[in-house]
């Protein structure tokens, strides 16, 4: 049996205010129920008014995910009953989401098929203790972006890579801290299995198991693998898995059925009459596109091309914590004229990452001298680079100065920065 995996990623927007009211959205470590108002508490007569900042941020994320930006959009009401949903409906988007179909390329070149990116309001936070449900409405109404992919993943590693990329993008674009521990990025995996024949014919399974509220990439990997086994065993014993919601239980190291007393879902979506429709001009879309920062894949290409970093080193700087180190990397690389050495120090010496650029530069230079290769070792490297780049060498001979820079970069890369660039330049000039 083959895995069929689709994802729903929820990302809390780091807008100043909540999605439909004036409450501040920064509720981290706040007293329970201290950030509520009639609107996000769902009191009778209170009304929602949408937050433009959140709309723009959702659009930015959609743009980076290469989604169609819909010129007409509106909010719908999605009905279900749960104590953490104060109005008995969630203001969400169904028929006209902010962003339609998109795609994101993984390192392997595989394109993840994105169905939509829409905006909605977060629910409150509920705890379950002693047969009671306790609710803190601070989280209620915070702007939440939902990214829905097609059931397009056949491997859990691809799904994890996609989630990490989305996390990086959200941070780079200042859409969200996307901190999974704080719960401002949450994953849901729709998992089912199908036969190889079904896969070939492009037929989807008739059921899906929805694993909700996964709050780490590791748990997602575990949950999917657990489901893969569980569902395989069910098929082996002649059963088809039930369509249901499950949750990852870290203690039990498995997914468990989340059967609630609530009724079967029929969300009864309809356009929210409290909120007039939204229209987006091509000028607005173009302007927002221009404001997008350099994206992880663009940065990676630049680090490899302009600084001569190896793709693996460049990857460090475009994902996770590495993104924050990019400005420092660029400054120190300029100071030392040694990008590869700078990268090595930043990647390998975590303790030095908070040092000043000047101190780091000293470290890079010192490291280089202590590791400096002998001239004979260097001569070997230089010859190798010259043989490998005949065209560049020819260009240099033809008088193109920048070609020499490239060759130096290649040598530095080969030696992992353990060489003095000036020695290399001398050697290159001699040899050529």
């Amino acid at each position: 049996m083959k895995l069929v995996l689709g994802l729903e990623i929820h990302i809390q927007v780091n807008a100043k205010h909540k999605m439909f009211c004036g409450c501040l959205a920064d509720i981290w470590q706040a007293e329970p129920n201290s950030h509520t108002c009639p609107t996000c508490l769902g009191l009778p007569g209170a009304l929602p008014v949408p937050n433009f900042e959140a709309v723009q941020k959702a659009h930015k994320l959609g743009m980076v995910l290469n989604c169609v930006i819909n010129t007409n959009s509106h909010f719908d009401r999605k009905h279900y009953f749960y104590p953490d949903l104060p109005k008995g409906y969630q203001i969400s988007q169904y028929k006209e989401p902010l962003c339609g179909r998109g795609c994101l390329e993984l390192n392997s070149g595989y394109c993840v098929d994105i169905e939509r990116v829409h905006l909605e309001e977060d629910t409150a936070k509920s705890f379950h203790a002693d047969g009671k449900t306790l609710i803190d409405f601070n989280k209620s109404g915070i702007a939440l972006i939902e990214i829905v992919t097609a059931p397009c993943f056949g491997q859990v590693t691809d799904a994890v890579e996609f989630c990490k990329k989305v996390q990086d993008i959200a941070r780079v674009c200042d859409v969200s801290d996307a901190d999974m521990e704080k719960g401002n990025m949450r994953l849901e995996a729709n998992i089912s299995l199908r036969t190889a024949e079904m896969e070939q014919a492009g037929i989807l399974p008739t059921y899906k198991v929805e694993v909700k509220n996964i709050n780490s990439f590791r748990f997602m990997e575990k949950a999917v693998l657990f489901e893969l086994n569980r569902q395989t065993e069910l098929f082996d014993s002649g059963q088809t898995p039930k369509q249901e919601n499950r949750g990852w239980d870290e203690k039990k190291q498995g997914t468990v059925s989340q059967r609630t007393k609530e009724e079967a879902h029929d969300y009864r979506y309809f356009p929210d009459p409290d909120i007039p429709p939204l229209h987006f001009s091509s000028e607005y879309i173009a302007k927002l596109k221009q404001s997008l920062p350099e994206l992880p894949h663009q940065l990676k290409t630049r680090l490899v091309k302009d600084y001569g970093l190896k793709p693996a080193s460049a990857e460090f700087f475009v994902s996770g914590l590495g993104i924050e180190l990019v400005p420092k990397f660029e400054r120190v690389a300029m100071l030392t004229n040694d990008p590869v050495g700078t990268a090595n120090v930043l990647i390998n010496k975590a303790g030095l990452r908070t040092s000043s650029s000047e101190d780091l530069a000293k470290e890079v230079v010192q490291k280089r001298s202590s590791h400096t290769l002998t001239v004979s070792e260097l001569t070997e490297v230089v010859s190798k680079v010259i043989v490998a780049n005949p065209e560049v060498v020819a260009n240099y001979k033809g008088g193109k100065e920048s070609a020499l820079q490239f060759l130096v970069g290649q040598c530095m890369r080969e030696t992992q920065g353990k060489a003095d660039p000036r020695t290399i330049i001398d050697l290159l000039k001699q040899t050529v």
Partner: protein
Amino acid sequence: MPSHKKMSAEEIVHIAGLVKLQLTPQEVDKFSELIPQTLATIDVLQELDTIGVEPTSNVAGLADVYRDGTQSTTLSQAEALANAPDRLKGLIATKGVFDRS
């Protein structure tokens, strides 16, 4: 034109579940007749040709209305909790939602 036969008790109970209502057997019986009767009165809409007509959900003719960032009507914790019948340590409490059976 759709027909509107008496609805089954099961259907009525399902609809009631959607809006979280517990109906008495008498109400189930009443609604199983009343809903089809009401639907029959709505059938008059089928007389009108609406091909190519856009649905209207907003008659004020407004669009693109956003909150001006300054407005806030945030309540204190005491105000937020004041009307809740059950509460515990700053939280609003209700009976558990998980089915323990």
